[in-house]
């Protein structure tokens, strides 16, 4: 939204009664008054490593010890009660607080030490094992929240309280859009087969909060109309629409001049972008130009719109089109019950496409300036929710530690950061809070998280909030 004031059609140079200069100035002032960042370079004070972010958000709480933090020690501890000394004082959710014992459940599947770092990755994730040399696994993430709503809100907006702006909206506000055909922040939603339906997600997770609403994420759906209201009404052709927009522009132009109204000039631009989106979105979602080999890389579900696999491929296509912030929300990771049945399904949905995305970005040279983040809102308990060994048992929520991975944009590849104790319960080395993740993400984009502020109700709001946040410099290459 910070493109220079240009009209690609129907240039109105010289037609304005008060002169182009006046209106152009007005337009910029109006932009500022609307709360658009007047110049994104104000916020970019660090040499950027990433031009864009792909956040593969795994909603529900992926089980860290089952996926990335398995340990040999757990074989021995399996079935023993989680010692009070480890659990001490830790609150647990209302779902297991009444449990009489807390038996340790070892990872439900074996794993391997992978890549240069030797990070343990579950055999449930064979494709992720393959890209171990390209990713950085952080095993020491932590959050205060232990229930979905506050946790997922914190992970995506930097606060457990309602009303804050999402990370994508912050990036859109801070850096604006790099392209003229798509919004700066696009969101893709899928539901896994692990648990269907899983916990709800909310538009606040990609919302603009107190930031102006043009920074909210725009959903790219999988139905007939990927962007809401994209299609012309039945019985109206693209040519017809073009002609209508030309007439509309002429009428609007006249009004803008007569009434000295810069907003109308801006509106003509927005109508033109809407028209371009009507072509650019179908072109984006049309996978016919993708090679069979590429489609195969992402797996069979890539051909089905709305699956995680299809969304991963679309994420790459959005990255190619310079969309600034691309976020997938994939539901189904909340394995309270039947973890031995649900988790393998959930992994099968996501493992190959996630890895394929990293491989695909890498071979196209896009990984260098794209930051990929894979992770959810918290981890899960080492102890079994429900009777150990029963098919219905699972794991409860756990915020004291969990695992994510990042790739690209100069993040150390084949690296592992942070450690947890024998019970995968407490962090023993290099804790990383969610706000540190946000700070690191912004740093990669060239933004000092302390400087990306928006004054709202007398306070300088920040994505990273009021508590101190730090960039995880150890993982930066």
């Amino acid at each position, binding site marked *: *939204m910070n493109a220079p004031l240009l009209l690609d059609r129907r240039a109105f140079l010289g037609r304005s009664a008060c002169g182009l200069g006046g209106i152009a*100035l*007005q337009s910029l*002032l109006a932009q*500022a*008054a609307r709360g658009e960042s007047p110049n994104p370079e104000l916020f970019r004070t660090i040499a950027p490593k990433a031009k864009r972010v792909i956040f593969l958000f795994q909603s529900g709480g992926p089980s860290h010890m089952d996926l990335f933090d398995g340990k040999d020690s757990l074989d021995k501890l399996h079935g023993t009660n989680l010692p009070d000394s480890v659990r001490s004082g830790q*609150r647990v959710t*209302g*779902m297991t607080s009444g449990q009489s014992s807390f038996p340790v459940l070892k990872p439900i599947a074996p794993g391997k030490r992978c890549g240069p770092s030797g990070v343990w990755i579950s055999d449930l994730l064979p494709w992720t094992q393959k890209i171990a040399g390209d990713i950085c696994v952080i095993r020491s993430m932590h959050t205060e929240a232990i*229930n*979905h*709503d506050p946790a997922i809100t914190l992970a995506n907006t930097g606060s457990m*309280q309602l*009303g804050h702006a999402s990370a994508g909206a912050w990036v859109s506000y801070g850096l604006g859009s790099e392209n003229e055909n798509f*919004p700066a922040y696009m969101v893709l*939603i899928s*539901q*896994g*087969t692990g648990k*269907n*339906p*899983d*916990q*709800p*997600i*909310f*538009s606040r997770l990609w919302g603009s909060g107190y930031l102006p609403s043009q920074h909210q994420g725009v959903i790219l759906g999988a139905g007939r109309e990927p962007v*809401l*209201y994209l299609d*012309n*009404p*039945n019985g109206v052709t693209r040519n*017809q629409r073009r*002609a*209508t927009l030309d*007439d509309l522009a002429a*009428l*609007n132009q006249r009004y*803008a001049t007569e*009434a000295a*109204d810069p*907003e*109308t000039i*801006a*509106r003509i631009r*927005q109508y033109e*972008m*809407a028209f371009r*989106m009507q072509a650019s979105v179908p072109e984006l979602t049309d996978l016919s130009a993708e090679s069979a080999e590429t489609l195969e890389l992402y797996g069979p579900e890539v051909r*089905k*719109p709305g699956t995680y696999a299809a969304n991963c491929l679309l994420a790459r296509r959005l990255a190619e089109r310079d969309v600034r912030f691309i976020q997938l929300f994939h539901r189904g990771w909340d394995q309270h*019950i039947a973890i031995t049945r649900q988790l393998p*399904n959930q992994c099968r949905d996501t493992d190959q496409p996630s890895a394929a995305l990293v491989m695909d970005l890498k071979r196209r040279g896009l990984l260098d300036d794209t930051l990929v983040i894979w992770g959810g809102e918290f981890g899960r308990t080492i102890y079994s929710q429900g009777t150990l060994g029963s*098919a*219905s048992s699972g794991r409860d*929520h756990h915020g004291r530690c969990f695992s994510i991975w990042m790739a690209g944009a100069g993040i150390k590849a084949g690296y592992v950061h942070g450690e947890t104790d024998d019970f995968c319960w407490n962090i023993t080395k290099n804790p990383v809070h969610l706000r540190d993740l946000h700070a690191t993400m912004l740093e990669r984009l060239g933004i000092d998280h*302390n400087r990306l502020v928006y004054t709202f*109700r*007398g306070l300088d709001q920040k994505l990273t909030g*009021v508590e101190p946040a730090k960039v995880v410099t150890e993982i930066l290459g």
Partner: protein
Amino acid sequence: MILAALPALASAEEKLSYNRDIRPILSKNCFSCHGPDEHGREAELRLDIAEDAYLGGESGDPSIVPGKPEESLLIKRIRHSSPRRVMPPPESHRQLNEDEKNLLERWIREGAEYEGHWAFEAPVKPELPPGEEAQAIDRFVADRLKKEGLQFSPEADRATLLRRVTLDLTGLPPTPAEIDAFEQDTSPDAFEKQVDRLLASPRFGEHQAVAWLDAARYADTNGYSIDGGRHQWLWRDWVIKAFNDNKPYDVFLTEQLAGDLLPGATEQQQVASGFNRNNANTHEGGTIAEENLVNYVADRVKTTSEVFMGLTMACAQCHDHKFDPISIRDYYRFFAFFNTVGDASHDGDGGINSKPFIHARSCLSTDEEAATVRADLEAARADLAKPDPAGLAAWVQSARADLSTAGKDLSLIPLKAESATSPNGDPERIKIQGDGSVTIDHGDYAAYNVMCRLPQEGGPIRGLRVEFLPTEKSKGKLGFHGAKGLEQNFVLSTITTSVSSFPALNVDLNAMLPMARISASGWQNGYGPERVRDTTPTNGWAPPTGATTPHFITVTFDSPIDPVTTPYLTTELMFNYQRGASPAHFRIHAFRGNDDGSPHPAEITAILREGADNLTAEQQQKLEAHFRATAPATAALRHRIANLEERLSVLTGKHPVMVMNTAEKPRLTHILDRGLYSSPGEAVTPGTPLSLPALEEPGDRELNRLDLARWLTRKDHPLTARVHVNRVWLAFFGKGLAPSAADFGVQSPLPSHPELLDWLAVDFVEKNWDTKALIRSIVTSRTYRQSAVAGEDLLKRDPSNDLLARGPRFRLAAEQIRDQALFVSGLLVERLGGPSVKPYQPGDLWRQISHYGSSPATSQTFVQDHGEKLYRRSLYTYWKRTLPPVNMAIFDAPNREVCSIGRSATNTPLQALVTLNDPQFVEAARAFAQDLLRKSTEDEARLKDAFRRVTSRPAAAEEMQILQRALTRERDRYRSDPAAAASLLATGESPADPTLDPAEHAAWTQLCSMLLNLSESFTRP
């Protein structure tokens, strides 16, 4: 940021003012470490209080020595050359520029006189500045303009003025007739008469309510997590009526904060107290009770303090406020006012309000409307009862034709389930048997996703049949329900099917197979097979209760599916009715050929099969009754009847609404360390912030919300009236006199016209908090009536119009944009108040993000309304917090999760897509066109009328040319493509006039759509 032309800084001669010149610098750069927050204070130094600053911090040296900058440590430190010593420290990312340093130095030299924060001191009515202007507002504005060497812009022309004031007061544009009348009225008070007419319109309350709903975070769902439905519209009705009745603001405030505590509280006063129940609440399992309760009360503190006092108290939940004099103790004393309510931590599930709630009448219901609705209802019922021999015959014919081919070439292929999943409960209870059928041990709310492989040989598949079988677990019956009438039965709420090339365990909500025909082997009265079509949890198909033999439902797809390209079929069987109303054993069949079942009840099927000629009168009657009750031809009339029945119940019955009360054993309030519910500290009793006027505590009881309301409405309260007056100003000028309408704290920018704000606030209280009088004085002022068109000089000089040398202009709000389209097209249905409605919304986004199938909560799927509910004013649109109405969110409507004051007015491509393509707007264009075509026969007259209806002004010749050209083009287009015309005209559910030429109608529809997309039409000029 571009700085506004705010109160001019002091000239070289004038003495500096602490509030105007100094506090902003200190507050921005110093107070976060040397301010009110005891916790975050560095070096024991406090710079926000004169005595402390003069005394200095731990160094022992005075920070400020009045008159002696050279002896003031503050100056030394801000000018220090060492990065380790300079203030503010570099790592704070704050920096003073040279001007700011000079100002601080000069202020100290001038005596370093502190002033109290303007907004915390009671306003005193200033003298009116001298001048010609009759109105006080204009005196103050003119005075300032004069000082700036500026003057008022000329008054806007009458059409513009009427458009402005009509949109501002009622939310809708004026009609051409209203503009004519105003333009022809030569009386000196012509404009005042218009204002009085508009203030008296019931639309006034509807429009004024919108901003209040944002502020009060009104919504129709619970907000957190599963976000189930709630019923709170009675409170909205109360707000509309309060505005229309011009309830004095002190009463308005008191009833909302403490209506339940008023002596002899009336039902409506209790309803008003629902203000403090609009907060989001949760029914997410596993959440921690104390945490939720703290969240609820914290939201009440946040909302109350922001809305009524313009204070961001929320900051003090975790620590003393960084800038404003509000301590954490102040916060929890304020918190204690709202902590006495008897609400529960997890509540509001299943579409039942969270406690406490009452049943009450709508304050907007009138006997007159009830009588009209009764008459309309009778007429509609009579219409439906009217014999429709042609319609009936056509229906009978098609039903017979359908039955005559039923069962033709049917071949059923039992499928083996390869996967069967359920989101919750013991996974072992759902099992695939050796024969491929699925058994379930016990009942639940459940979405069972079952995947089967289709037979590769034998050709396309027409549909599927789900057969339900009795089991021992279900006592020889078909299901597990326990309630009366459905014992050991189940209700299939929805069935959804998709096919795929790979084994998809989940049904694909983006590619659901449309269902052409649904039949069943039999059903419990009221639970026919067609009822699985919508996703409403409370209806669906149920086999006859008590059945001990298999029953089945059969779905024929719109078009056959090819099992070779899509070998996997996944179907989701949704049992959402009430806990346990789910089946024990089922088997899925695919079929080729025609379903042999009937979509009609057995008796009707028998009559239909019997033949047309020899029906008895009774049979004929039954057939007719069934036709009326189910045929597509009668759907519109049935929707009308259902809507009228509901409306009558709204007008005559009692309905649930959440209210405040006082718990029998109110919770004790503690100061929570760092705001954590798990760290309760000292217990506190209710009280108000120490920096504001004192509220005396009675000796014999604790303070309560009524005391709080009385305190807020004290005549000398520094904030209440100012904040309200400023918010009213905001509504008419696009921004407040104090620019941050929800924050009057120390950090807030100073008002552009402080004296005017104070004058209005005091005058408002003197006039008994009369909001309509305040509004009247604003909109009749010269300031308001100025033209918004400004020359380049003025635009440069005062780009954001802080000085008010021109009229205000801004984009219409989301509601107004939709309402205007409905209004000018004649589609708008104006009913005052009532439950929220669900007009068009694309697809079912709710279902894609919700807990549908795993929860008894309502509002997990979107079920569109019909008939008049599609055309109500937008403030009645159902507000789901986790996914607010998309076509309004795109136009900056907030999600109503938290208090929101003032909306932004962005300008985005998605907005263009809404007004160009949303069926709501396309249908409006079609109805608009229809109205034009009926009213006149001349193109020119129609174009002129149409243009004026959307812009409120006549079209210029140049504009007429463009419109005429567009019309010709569209005409050519649709004359050459009648099919395109027909499909455009099919948009929307309201009937198109069949007597109009479709090509002509379509061409005008396009033209009207263009007019509804004029930038000017979105502009309140």
